[in-house]
């Protein structure tokens, strides 16, 4: 079977690099994904899981004959432990951008086989490139979220407005520091304090915490997870705070009325990767190649407002839907791509940004109890 697979791959690569008409390329690349057996894929659950099932897994299964097994996603640390034990949880793992670099550095991932890809698709990954070991899965943004009714006369437009209690009174909510990079509260605190986006990194921990000090009395709750960030606003426990754009849209599609501003949004991403020791790695390569195509990515973004990572997908997304996505051309530049390199680099104190963020948070809450 192995022989057969590699022969097929060879043919596909040959076909792609050969003198074949450009139009025929995707067709041949797509044919090459057929296979047998199964692939165990990270599953996000909820509406994200629904989008994944409809946009990716079902059409992939229909086209390739490979059975997709959805398996609950796990925290980065659990995934790492599983790889170290030689029994990774998934063939196709989903790892947040903040943790990805550490997986790469420690040799826990298999290289992505771009032989299965149509070359124009790889080029389509403009904002965050598809690299040797991982492929960005989706882009999302941590934005200012607020009660539309409460601030009907003037809507908040920046993180500084979240700190502006005079013009925007009401209770606040921000991610607890234990969320580290994913919660983006350190970046937010600095932007609110007037730091320019280009000067954000390396994070000035003291300045960020001093900025949070000023807000502290008005934060009703430091949210622990994404569900809470939006639920606090739905219940009017908080009237302004930070939340992921997809969570806000999800609540609004079901009847909530939470406003958002793209200004100074912190653009984040999660990526697909194949763990070392994955049992169905050939099928995993095919699943990832399938997800790189613009059509299923467009379908995904039509179900849930997370941005496609292959910009070619915008050719297949209606304009009014595209306007809602964080990577839409009109709003893309108003946001700041989170610097995951900083978050994974060891500083003078010998700690990565992630570790420092949690240690600083623990110190901060203990000192100001």
């Amino acid at each position, binding site marked *: 079977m192995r022989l057969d697979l590699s022969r097929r791959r060879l043919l596909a690569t040959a076909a792609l690099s050969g003198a074949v008409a450009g139009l025929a390329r995707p067709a041949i690349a797509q044919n090459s994904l057929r296979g047998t057996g199964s692939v165990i894929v990270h599953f996000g659950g909820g509406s994200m899981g629904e989008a994944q099932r409809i946009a990716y897994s079902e059409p992939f299964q229909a086209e390739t004959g490979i059975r997709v097994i959805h398996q*609950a996603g796990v925290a980065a*640390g*659990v995934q790492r432990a599983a790889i170290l034990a030689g*029994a990774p949880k998934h063939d196709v793992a989903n790892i947040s951008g903040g*943790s990805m670099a550490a997986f790469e550095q420690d040799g826990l991932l298999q290289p992505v086989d771009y032989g299965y890809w149509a070359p124009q698709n790889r080029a389509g990954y403009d904002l965050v490139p598809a690299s040797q070991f991982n492929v960005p899965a989706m882009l999302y943004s941590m934005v200012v979220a607020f009660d539309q009714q409460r601030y009907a006369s003037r809507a908040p437009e920046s993180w500084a407005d979240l700190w502006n209690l005079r013009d925007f009174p009401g209770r606040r909510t921000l991610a607890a520091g234990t969320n580290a990079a994913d919660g983006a509260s350190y970046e937010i605190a600095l932007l609110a304090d007037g730091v320019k986006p280009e000067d954000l990194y390396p994070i000035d921990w003291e300045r960020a915490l001093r900025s949070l000090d000023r807000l502290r009395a008005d934060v009703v709750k430091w949210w622990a997870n994404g*569900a809470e960030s939006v639920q606090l606003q739905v*219940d009017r*426990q908080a009237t302004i705070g930070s939340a992921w754009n997809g969570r806000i849209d999800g609540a609004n599609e079901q009847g909530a009325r939470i406003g958002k501003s793209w200004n100074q949004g912190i653009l984040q991403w999660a990526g697909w990767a194949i763990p070392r020791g994955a049992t169905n790695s050939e099928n995993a390569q095919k699943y990832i190649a399938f997800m790189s195509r613009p059509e299923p990515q467009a379908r995904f973004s039509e179900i849930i407002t997370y941005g496609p990572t292959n910009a070619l997908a915008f050719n297949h997304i209606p304009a009014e839907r595209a306007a809602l996505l964080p990577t839409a051309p009109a709003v893309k530049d108003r946001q700041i791509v989170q610097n995951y390199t900083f978050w994974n680099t060891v500083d003078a104190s010998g700690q990565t940004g992630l*570790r420092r963020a949690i*240690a600083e948070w623990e110190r901060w809450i203990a000192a100001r109890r």
Partner: protein
Amino acid sequence: MGGMTGRDRQRAALLLPALLLLALGFLAPLATVAWTSLRRAGHFSLAAYAEILASPVFLDILLRTLWMAVLVTALCAALGYPFAYCVATRARRHAGLIMALVTVPYLTSILIRSYAWVAILGGGGLVNRTLIALGLIEDPLQLVFNSFGSYVGMVHILLPMMVLPLYAAMRRIDGALLLAGRGLGGGPMPVFVTVFLPLSLPGLAAGSALVFLSALGFYIAPALLGAPGDYMLAQAIEVRVATLAEFDVAAGLSCILLVLVGGFLMLFRRRIVSLADDPASTPARVVGVAGLRPACAASAIGAVPGLRAALNAMGDAVAPLAGPLLHLHGAALLVFMLAPMLVVVLIACSSAPYLTFPPPGYSWRWFMALLDDANWLEAAWFSLTVSTAAAVAALAIGTPFAFGLARGRFGGRRLLWLLAVSPMILPHIVIGLGLFFTFVALGLNGHPVSFWLAYTVIGLPYVVIILLSALGRFDVDLERAAANLGAAPMTAFRTVTLPLLAASFVTAFLFAFLSGFDDLIIGLFLSSPRGTTLAIRMWEDIRLEISPKTAVVGVVQLGVLLVAMTLPMLRTMLPRRRVRTEA
């Protein structure tokens, strides 16, 4: 162990099944954890410990965690004791139903339960709205997202662990002893203080141990309902495993916690459990406690007129109020336990597409959504079977273990006891990490058997603590009487011991079952296409958006509990086929 008699050897053999399980399911993972804590970058290193000990933050978090656990234990004891007393002495006919209702908090996932508390205590919540409507306050009180919220959430879920062992201990108190105390001239108050209270202490000790040890491992309730400063050690460990993958520091913190709490337990062990040949629990003393001491105490009170008069006067003053007060307290506590469930029921019947309270309308849509979801039903069945199998196994090996410890006299029993309760001390994320590596090495990765083993290990401490407290001051003379009358040991066990301990067995089984059924963290380590629990499915669904579907699961579980409750009632209405003769 050299001078062990044949009987003691037999009793020591009773420990074997549990020890085998612990060797595989706890010692091996613990060794992995300890090993992990001593390695950095592939070499032996004490760096993790040096880091922990050098950091003032860890000491602060550790002390705060111990303090919160102590306070929660004290709160549960103060609230739970009068409640159990009221049920055991004044509401015995409804005791089964009341005790079942007390376990209701366990029926819903922590996230939806916390949401219910926010709906009750929040700024626009039920309590504040009621108080404002009554004109008692003008601005809403801050009742949640502060330490008050933390303690409400923790006491709510831990109270059953206090109440059930207390109730089991109080049920075993022989009413004749209380009458004897009265006959010897004790008023209600002296009899309570000198007879009832000492006899109920084993239940209080067991309940306190369960609450304290569980509270040590808490973090989700304080994280969702508390102030940012209510940051417990288990959260510090969790974030180091899950987010930072800093396994050595997490393992080091766990080992320090285990040594500290283990040492603490050994220090107070005699107050927590009584084993044979402890001064407090030799058979003679057991009889003494059960029969003679009250009489002595009562006569001692008689001999000190001042004390007697004071206690009697206090008793007389309190007596007319005691009944109503106890009932009021009991009712209030039941409301406290059940109020979030009421919110959950309303949410489950909500017509809204998202979570909101109060619901704008009512419908069955979320029940339909659940029934339509084959994945959830499959996961529910999986959780039910592995948790039941694990609870059965924990009871099957925990019962002989408790008997062996309670009755045998051989060296090392204190350490063996500590070993059996230790799975409660280590945070689940660390047990999960250790178990996972062990199971992968054994070729059990992803196999349903791995869940069964893991849940048996975490269920065992409940069985051992609850049964030891029941056996510690158990009247051995009853078993001896049965033996003298010619009963074989097993027969004596079946006809005398078992019925007397029935309430404790039920309690032990229940907590062993719930510890597995409720688990999410270990399950995530063990999860595979062949094994996904209901807790994992719910977590998948609600970490990004809390859906009313999760509330439906709680309501379905409540329904199952109520049906299970009514079945025995139906049985009592049927004519009995066999009347068992008991001495």
